């Protein structure tokens, strides 16, 4: 894909899906430890998300860096908004902020039943 098409395509993915994880590998088979951590957190919370494997398309991998102004993968988007990479997602999860944010945005997850 050419650069502008990539930017448009990424923009469409984060609008069409409530939760999108750009990652190396897939949710079933992550190919990088950082991507795996985020996939595990989302899996643990029972969040339904769209996984996009940047290793499938070099233009997406490069275009994503420009799109988010973020140099690394994984990248998590919720309701079209960039949440962060692995460190931020893990920090938010450990602080309970990720669960709160998902709840505030109306994303189904099982955090409530766990903390109850």
């Amino acid at each position: 894909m050419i650069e502008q098409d990539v930017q448009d395509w990424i923009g469409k993915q984060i609008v069409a899906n409530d939760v999108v994880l750009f990652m190396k590998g897939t949710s079933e088979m992550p190919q990088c430890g950082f991507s795996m951590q985020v996939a595990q957190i989302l899996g643990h919370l029972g969040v339904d998300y769209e996984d996009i494997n940047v290793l499938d398309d070099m233009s997406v991998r490069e275009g994503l860096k420009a799109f988010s102004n973020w140099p690394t993968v994984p990248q998590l988007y919720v309701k079209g908004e960039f949440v962060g990479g692995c460190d931020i997602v893990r920090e938010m999860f450990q602080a309970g902020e990720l669960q709160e944010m998902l709840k505030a945005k109306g994303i189904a997850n099982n955090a409530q039943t766990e903390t109850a």
Partner: protein
Amino acid sequence: MAMAAADIERLIKERFPDAEIQIEDLAGDGNHYSASVVSKDFRGKSRVQQHQMVYEALQGNMGGVLHALALKTTAP
């Protein structure tokens, strides 16, 4: 490809002169680091913005020669 801890610290220090920086070479391979950066410049910024500021300070090395830098940013 790898990057020395001293170079990472220098680049961050240039951008955040007041910063307290702690860098750890996690795997001993010059390629997997964790960095903790405390700077008043982070006040009022979101986590994403704070990390973006550090990535900018690293001048494109992050995701390139520097493969993995676990980042923790805090305002004092």
